[in-house]
């Protein structure tokens, strides 16, 4: 039986992680490579790195980081943030990432999904989407770009389905309303997307406790759950989350 994945998310700026100041065990918490290794050893099923660097130099540093991470961890990882072209996708994949996540750029130029899937295989292409509740939209959710700051005219469900038709192999659904609240994932949004597309959906935004993770799998039909601050700040370990999942009869990888 396919197991539900716990995906640890790290934000990276100029080659340093931006969260994780209270990470346990004397790890150099600013170093994404060290953190990646620590989470790999702690049982993370997958990692995702979001490059929040603006500069071109920063982008070069990110590629080096990806190369280093690829040598240290033997579970899949994705890289997203500022992916602007198919060549940029290629650079990230050749550096050793399994998947590359496109978000705003795909809204501006959806062809990047088709071209990426054609060149690298759809399993490599992840669509990240930032959605916010909006009763005016057909599905009740509107797509935002530029880190959730700019509204678009796209409906969340329509966009998800279009992206899958174009070749996206997985969708990360980030709820702008839930993000940062620590009150739990937005179940309705996750369920809406997950039950209406044929590819796996990763729930994102709002996780504060292991019970929230259980909830998004049980009620939100998510295939994977993204966690960030709840593990970075040492409130919970990946193992805490997985034990809670196993205790709720959610299939999960418990051997690592």
């Amino acid at each position: 039986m396919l197991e539900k994945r716990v995906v640890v998310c790290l934000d990276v700026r100029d080659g340093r992680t931006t969260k994780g100041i209270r990470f346990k065990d004397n790890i150099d918490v600013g170093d994404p490579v060290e953190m990646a290794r620590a989470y790999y050893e702690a049982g993370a099923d997958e990692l995702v790195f979001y490059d929040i660097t603006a500069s071109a130099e920063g982008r070069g540093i990110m590629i080096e980081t990806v190369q280093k991470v690829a040598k240290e961890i033997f579970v899949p990882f994705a890289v997203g943030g500022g992916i602007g072209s198919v060549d940029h996708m290629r650079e990230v994949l050749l550096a050793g990432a399994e998947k590359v996540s496109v978000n705003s750029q795909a809204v501006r130029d959806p062809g990047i999904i088709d071209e990426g899937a054609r060149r690298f295989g759809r399993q490599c292409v992840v669509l990240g989407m930032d959605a916010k509740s909006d009763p005016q939209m057909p599905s009740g959710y509107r797509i935002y770009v530029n880190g959730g700051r700019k509204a678009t005219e796209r409906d969340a469900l329509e966009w998800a389905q279009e992206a899958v038709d174009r070749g996206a192999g997985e969708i990360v659904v980030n709820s702008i309303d839930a993000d940062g609240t620590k009150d739990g994932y937005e179940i309705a949004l996750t369920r809406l997307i997950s039950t209406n597309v044929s590819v796996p959906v990763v729930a994102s935004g709002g996780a504060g406790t292991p019970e929230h993770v259980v909830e998004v799998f049980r009620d939100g039909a998510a295939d994977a759950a993204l966690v960030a601050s709840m593990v970075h700040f040492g409130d919970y370990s990946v193992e805490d989350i997985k034990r809670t999942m196993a205790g709720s009869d959610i299939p999960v990888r418990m051997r690592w």
Partner: protein
Amino acid sequence: MSVGVIDYEAGNLRSIETALEYLGATYVVSGDPDRLADCSRLVIPGVGDAAAAMDTLRARGLDRLILDFAGRGLPVFGICLGAQIVLDSSEENDARCLGLIPGRVRVFRPTRTEKVPHIGWNRAAAKHHHHPLFKEIPEDASFYFVHSFYPEPESGSDVVAQTEYGVRFASAIARGNVWAVQFHPEKSGRYGLRMLANYLDGAAHGDGAPAGDVQPEGARSREGDSA
């Protein structure tokens, strides 16, 4: 010992390289049969389309290299797409494959509960616990899968482990010196690395191969071999 990793433009080979590096193996990644001919092991990695993969293998003469390798009893290890093309044929564009293990490759039919591709961690329940592939790997270990097609060997005796995903399919298969897994051991954490190490070690000692099928390291000789 040198491990040949076949490059036939079927996906990114970086992760298999880093795993081999981590395990301290000496390896060569190449799409040139001449550069791979001296290796003592052959890994067929890859993701993507079986028909396109077979076309590339044939165009480069790599199909003959693999068949020759297997025929000489040297250890061959297929991963993901590499585990599919060791069979006779694939439903994917009706590809004719290498035929090292009798059987065919079938496609997953999406169901209400099972999405396709099958992406993520799943168990591989060892059917043959004695197979060296699963040496020192706990029964409840999970492996990372990404695929839409799955191997279906003709003979149950070629099935080493099975996985449930809507159907129960053969996720690890082996016949003599040809071993293959549908999942990605190079991305399956500690136990995936252990499995790769099992291939590197076990195959060298001839475990899992019919008696006399695998020549000891250094014992083979072939005209034109140098180094």
